[in-house]
């Protein structure tokens, strides 16, 4: 290991305060031919304020894992603790979720979509409007609050979706391939925007993606999952300096990191 540069070092020491702790998590579902193991013995810790990206082949269970962290699905065994407490049901005060399709309510304007979580817990109207407008500004959509989702571009919809995920100010933001449906250019811009928003809000982010470039560009740490049953087979620290720039993508180190992730995935496949 002596000749490995610091940038490529394996993550060993865990940060002091953990926002997400997953231990001994296993998931088995009932398939047509009996029990199908989907996730096996997942253990991971995400330090507060870290940006962790999960990559892995299709069907490896990365989305399932994320849904379990969101309290939207229940694992067969094992524990997930968010901010020190187990999560059994969705808790928007602790966890915001951004889905692959922006999943905006088409009958609500952008602003009403962002307000939706606040309306669910009957927050006063003035407070709702104020928070929603702050979020709208944060994601760079000032002036677009009165638009309906079908009047927004794909990237703008995901901005609204991010704003909605952050409106209750949860410490943790889970993102399930949020930019997968966008074109390459929009995707790059959105990645950059997400890092800006992240640096302004200091959230803990877990981000699932297929794109290795996106993974290296965004992450503090990349977790590589195996094909089904999903296991974590690699943890790669991305010690590129922040703020990240587009130019970094052309550097050798960037290519090296991406290649390293690719090797891990390929070895398993």
């Amino acid at each position, binding site marked *: 290991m002596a000749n490995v540069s610091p940038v490529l070092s394996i993550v060993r020491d865990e940060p002091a305060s953990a926002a997400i702790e997953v231990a001994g998590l296993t998931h088995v579902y009932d398939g047509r031919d009996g029990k199908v193991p989907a996730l096996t013995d997942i253990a991971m810790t995400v330090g507060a304020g870290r940006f962790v990206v999960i990559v892995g082949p299709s069907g490896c269970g990365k989305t399932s894992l994320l849904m379990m962290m*969101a*309290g*939207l699905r229940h694992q067969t065994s094992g524990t997930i603790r968010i901010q020190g407490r187990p999560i059994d049901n*969705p*808790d*928007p005060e602790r*966890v*915001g*979720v951004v*889905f692959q*399709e922006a*999943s905006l*309510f*088409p*009958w*609500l304007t952008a602003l009403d979509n962002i307000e*939706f*979580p606040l*309306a*669910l*817990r009957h927050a006063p109207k003035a407070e709702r409007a104020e928070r929603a407008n702050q979020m709208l500004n944060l*994601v*760079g*959509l*000032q*002036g677009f609050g009165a*638009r*309906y989702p*079908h*009047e927004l*571009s794909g*990237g*703008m919809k995901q*901005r609204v979706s991010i704003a*909605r995920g952050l409106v209750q100010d949860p410490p943790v933001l889970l993102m399930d391939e949020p930019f997968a449906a966008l074109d390459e*250019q*929009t995707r790059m*811009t*959105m990645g950059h*925007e997400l890092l800006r928003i992240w640096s302004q809000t200091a959230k803990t982010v877990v981000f699932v993606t297929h794109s290795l470039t996106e993974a290296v560009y965004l992450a503090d740490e990349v977790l590589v999952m195996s094909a089904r049953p999903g296991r974590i087979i690699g943890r790669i620290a991305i010690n590129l300096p922040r703020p990240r720039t587009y130019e970094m993508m052309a550097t050798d180190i960037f290519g090296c990191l991406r290649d390293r992730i690719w090797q891990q995935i390929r070895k398993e496949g």
Partner: protein
Amino acid sequence: MKRPAPATVRWLILAGLLVFWELFPRTGIIPELFMPPLSKVLAVLAKDWREYASELAVTLYEVACAMLIACGAGILAGALVGGVALLRSLLLPVFSSLYAVPLVILYPIFTAWFGIGSESKIIFAGVYGFFPVMLSTAAGIRTIDAQLLLAARSMGATLPQQIARVIIPASIPTVLTGLRLGGALTIIGVVVSEMLISSAGIGYLVTRYRTILDSAHVFGAIVVILLLSILFDTFARAVERRTLVWQTAGRRQKAGEVVQIAGSPAPAPV
């Protein structure tokens, strides 16, 4: 040459048909009994408007009651069948096949059960209109984007909140289409049952004047029914348009909004 707008062409075709209706019977090619000129029909309507109005009132009352049954029961049953998997697998195939049966064959039985007054018409037309309302409500609920419900749950929505804030608004477009179809069917149901066995209503007028070969009065009643149906359809479509403003608003507003974007301080984001 500039092409005329489709709307203009539509009105021209309608005007053409009306002119044809006035002039063709006067040529003597067909007997007036088959088709009296438009002006004679209108004259009959003007002369006997009291009779038409009082029979129309009966029909309207029956239609209103039948629509209430069709919409109320249809939405309720559709929500249950669409929302509960067990009911769906048990009942949906039955309801779908029943929809294909010409229910009018049941009408004589309905008269035996409920008499030849308004009740049998209301119930028959209610059942007739029930099916499209029920089926489209069920479809509307079944085809809701599961992702939207997942998103709502992730934001902490309880089941009642999911129903009130996601399921109902998301199924409104399909339900409204069902109400429009169901409403049109209740009108058909009432008029047909009045024509078959009855003693009042606008459908009854058609039958009564036909038996005494008074074709001007028959056509008068037909015109009234036509207007009733068109009026209902226009109304229903207007309601749909108003309610579904979120589906179409953009196309109408875009031009105005581009200016606003250009004037806003921040560059338009992707």
